[in-house]
């Protein structure tokens, strides 16, 4: 039987074919092999099934809890900073009294143009551990404190990582909130005003509920971004491991075990755990915020 390539029955499959092929070859295979390898000891030319040993090894691995702690703290802090502040800034930029808001929007957007390599490099040296670096000299001159060893201590290092993330993502989150704000009908605000609602009440009972889809969306991508963070810490410590692993993230641990030490089985087990954590965190989040109901419509 001859298949007519040009029929309306066959054409749609030809259209979606590139995606299906790439999906099967790269994504299905990768997920499958991550699952399989997580139960194997993989060395060059020697693959053995070792059951749950990789997972057991992780429990005894001293790096693993550190990586989890860093990643979780980083994710929570970025969520706390990268949603309320951009929301507030967007409302302020959108207010009637604001002049030249386009100019400020552009300035806040600019970090996004910068690659993580250049951004990481710049922050590494702005937070350099000498007296003369930008941040330390400001601290010493303005507050008369002592220089901070930013990239050698746990909490200072966390501050640098979170500052870097805030610097990079605040602008785009403001843009998301601005487009959300612009889709709220003006009539609703007028109605609120007639009912005598003050600025705070309008913000709390009108703006926030109307921005809920944007907030849910930003929560979702920030959770993904936070839990999968790696490049930033890789750049801040110039590809070397950070002192006492203060900058080690879960993906960093995958990279360290998988690429640097060739322990693919162990790396796969970490990857699988992270995948489950990422998906379940976001499912819970979507369930709590009601984001799933919207999607099923």
């Amino acid at each position, binding site marked *: 039987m001859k298949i007519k390539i*040009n029929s*309306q029955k066959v*054409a*749609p499959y030809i*259209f*979606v074919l*590139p*995606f*299906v092929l790439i*999906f099967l070859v*790269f*994504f299905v*295979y*990768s997920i499958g092999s*991550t699952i399989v390898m997580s139960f194997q000891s993989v060395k060059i030319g020697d693959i053995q099934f070792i059951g749950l040993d990789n997972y057991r090894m992780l429990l005894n691995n001293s790096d693993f809890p550190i990586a989890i702690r860093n990643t979780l703290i980083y994710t929570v802090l970025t969520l706390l900073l990268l949603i309320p502040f951009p929301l507030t*800034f967007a409302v302020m930029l959108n*207010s*009637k*009294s604001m002049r*030249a808001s386009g100019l*400020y929007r*552009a*300035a*806040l*957007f*600019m970090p996004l*143009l*910068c690659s993580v*390599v*250049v*951004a990481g*490099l*710049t922050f590494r*040296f702005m937070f*350099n*551990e*000498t007296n003369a*670096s*930008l941040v330390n000299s400001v601290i010493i001159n303005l507050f008369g404190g002592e220089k901070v060893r930013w990239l050698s201590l746990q909490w200072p290092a966390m501050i640098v990582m979170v500052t870097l993330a805030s*610097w990079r993502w*605040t*602008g*785009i989150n403001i*843009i998301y909130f601005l487009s959300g704000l*612009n889709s709220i009908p*003006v009539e609703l*605000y007028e109605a609120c005003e007639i009912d005598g609602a003050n*600025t705070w009440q*309008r913000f709390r009972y009108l703006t926030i509920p109307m921005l809920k889809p944007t907030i849910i969306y930003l929560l979702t*991508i920030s959770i*993904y971004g936070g839990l*999968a963070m790696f*490049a930033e810490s*890789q750049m801040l410590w*110039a*590809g070397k491991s950070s002192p006492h692993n203060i900058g080690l993230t879960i*993906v960093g641990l995958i*990279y360290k075990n998988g690429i640097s030490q060739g322990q*693919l089985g162990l*790396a796969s087990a970490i990857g699988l755990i992270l995948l489950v954590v990422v998906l379940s965190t976001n499912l819970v989040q979507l369930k709590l915020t009601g984001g799933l109901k919207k999607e099923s419509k």
Partner: protein
Amino acid sequence: MSKFSFSRLKPGEHRITGVLLVLFFTALGVIVLLPFISIVVTSLKDSGMVIRNGFNLNISAETFTLENYKYLFTGGDHNYFIWFRNSIFLTVVQTALTLFISSWVGYGFAFYEFKGKTLIFICVLIVMMIPFEILMLPMYREIIAMKLNNTYLGIMLPFLAHPIAIFFFRQFLQSIPKEIVDAGRIDGCSEYGIFLRLIMPIMKPAFAAMGIYIGMMSWNNFIWPLLVLTDTKMFTLPIGLTSLMGPYGNNYMLLISGAVMTILPIMVLFFIAQRFFIEGMSTGSVKG
């Protein structure tokens, strides 16, 4: 536009809030621009000072020098401009191919009903939801098995049918009336001819927005090329700059001035087409 929050204020109060807002955002804007200013200032000083002092804003007539840029442009013995050319090449090819293939797939989802459509579309959403970093190791092994390591095809291939782009194009195409397709069929166009000749020309605004998003991702792409590329002559700018920080050479002269020259082209483009950048980057929804 919903301009609202201070609308009940009297004109005088209005002006005061306005001044306060402008002051606040000017301060915030300066803080946000500080990293850019500090790297540019540092690039104009002796590179030896980087290790001693890090980045700061101090510069004087004595410390000012163009040595770093002189070395960058005429120094000879470095690969910076090879990396620059590689980056431009990869960005252009990857953006063009990704736009074409993703819009091709998006068209299939938007204009046809077929068995398995929902299932395949769910797969698109699944790919969107899995952080790439988790799959990078097995994907890297596949690329090696296909002998595509150290090639640009190896960098591009897994992402040519880009889920975000597919999603975006499908959304865009759903607003186009189906009559165009029927008219094309009556005129004797093939199913593919309809897409290539009738649909693609109307997709220009969507291509522009997504093109900026994909282009930025490709230009700044870091972790995946870092894995795939091994030959210095094949490096892109982000990988090349990273290699300058490696254990073998702390070549700060080239690193800092080279980093500045990496941001410069995008900055220029941004100021020319600011609105498109902001639209483009907010359409491409996931952080990368």
